[in-house]
């Protein structure tokens, strides 16, 4: 079986509440129109120049350059499910590429909305680490490539919402307790007033499946990268505190039994279901993760649970079977994968 991207394989710092951290830098090559406005020859030129620059990254490990057109649909979808490429990079694969390191925690999308989208993904809360690694990748590539940049407007991007630092830093939260006490809106609703934005698990327009929310900066002009990271870190600390408060509240004596009952019921369904959709699985796995993180449910392995959250996605399931599957078959296979994994972790715990 294919190995899952390293940032989804383990839990990281504050891993009970923060699933992962991502920093993304947009860069464009000087003198070549942005992908949407470029000709086929110009897109090819971007691919050639970028492929030649991959050697500069040697100091950071082994990197592989692959053109999207050489992958099958399933392989591309797996990369989306692991957040290594965006859903839009998967569609229309012509003249697009992705550069990945061996651990699959650094990815560079070529010819997405911008010529280059450098992404660094880390497990848990690691904003500074992710930013430092991303800027390192950027510096190494810049030794070989001329980026579109001007001193007044900064790094030039196809969309004016990214221009300047072109940095989008995101923290991926798991907020089941705030959701349970119906305070997610109150906590996250205010962030837009502070130049931040909240989205669901798979980015723009996606629902917050399994109580997973992504918090990112909106502003890229007029503040330095360090200021952006500090600002996001401040809000992250506030959200962490609120979720911790909500978790303590759920464990207070007068409602502890209700909480335990709720979490064990979800656990029971996961251990016994014969068919399950990915949405239902995400919701119940979110409950189970909470149960394990609170110490209510014993024998839970947080790493295994985190892996399950991506293994149950359609493309991952189909890759286990080595072929495309009809929806009903996926639901059956998903339920059996969950049952087996949970059984394994119980045996391991005893």
């Amino acid at each position, binding site marked *: 079986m294919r190995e899952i991207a390293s940032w989804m394989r383990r839990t990281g710092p504050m891993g009970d509440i923060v699933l992962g951290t991502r920093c993304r830098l947009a860069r464009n090559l000087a003198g070549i129109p942005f992908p*949407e406005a470029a000709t086929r020859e110009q897109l090819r030129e971007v691919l050639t120049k970028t492929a030649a620059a991959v050697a500069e990254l040697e100091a950071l490990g082994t990197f592989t350059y692959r053109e999207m057109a050489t992958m099958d649909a399933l392989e591309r979808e797996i990369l989306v499910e692991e957040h290594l490429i965006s859903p839009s990079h998967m569609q229309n694969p012509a003249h697009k590429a992705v550069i990945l390191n061996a651990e699959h925690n650094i990815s560079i999308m070529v010819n997405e909305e911008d010529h280059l989208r450098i992404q660094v993904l880390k497990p848990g809360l690691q904003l500074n680490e992710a930013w430092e690694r991303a800027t390192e990748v950027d510096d190494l590539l810049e030794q070989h490539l001329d980026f579109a940049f001007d001193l007044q407007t900064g790094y030039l991007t196809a969309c004016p919402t990214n221009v300047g630092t072109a940095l989008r830093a995101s923290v991926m939260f798991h907020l089941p307790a705030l959701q349970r006490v119906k305070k997610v809106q109150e906590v996250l609703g205010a962030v837009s007033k502070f130049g931040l934005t909240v989205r669901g698990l798979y980015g723009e327009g996606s629902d917050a499946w399994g109580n997973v929310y992504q918090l990112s900066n909106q502003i890229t002009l007029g503040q330095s990268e360090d200021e952006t990271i500090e600002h996001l870190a401040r809000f992250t600390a506030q959200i962490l505190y609120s979720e911790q408060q909500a978790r303590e509240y759920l464990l207070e004596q007068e409602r502890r039994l209700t909480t335990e009952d709720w979490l064990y019921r979800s656990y029971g369904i996961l251990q016994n279901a014969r068919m399950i959709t990915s949405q239902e699985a995400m919701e119940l796995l979110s409950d189970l993760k909470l149960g394990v993180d609170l110490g209510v449910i014993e024998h839970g392995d947080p790493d295994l649970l985190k892996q399950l959250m991506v293994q149950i996605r359609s493309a991952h399931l189909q890759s286990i079977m080595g072929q495309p599957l009809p929806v009903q078959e996926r639901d059956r296979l998903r339920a059996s994968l969950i049952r087996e994994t949970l059984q394994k972790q119980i045996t391991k715990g005893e």
Partner: protein
Amino acid sequence: MLCDKCGKQEATVKFVQIENNKKTELHLCRDCAHGYPGFSTGFDLQHLLSSLFQSVGLGQAVAPTVTMKTCPTCGRSIADIQKTGRLGCGSCYEAFREELNPVLRRLHGSGNHTGKVPARAFPKVRTARQMEELRRRLEECVRLEKYEEAAKYRDELRLLEKQLAGGEA
């Protein structure tokens, strides 16, 4: 006003239904509104972006020659950019600076980049910006009375000052 359905959350959506000439009005919270057929927030980033650009040119009397202006590198006009909300290439920023500045200020609250500078292309500016950032941190540490950390930033600053003076950067 509280939501008519759950009575718990603040109502933010007005839902009007006309059936057999009878009009019913519901005030719903965001969560409950999602359950109603035909409900859409109508939020569309593409549309929002292009509207930001449109308010720049339209409304003011813009001479036809200005609207005809195109980017020398990619050939896009301001009308093209208004339509998609996207720029064609890096030179568009220079070609349409006048039209873009108000858009950037509306989006970011600022029109000036204060972040990272590419090292190979602008070595001196990069060092100067790094020094600005270190000074900012130094002041912050002094304000918070974190003197040990402040000393670290002061040493880094001195090193960069020397580099800049020696022309090594």
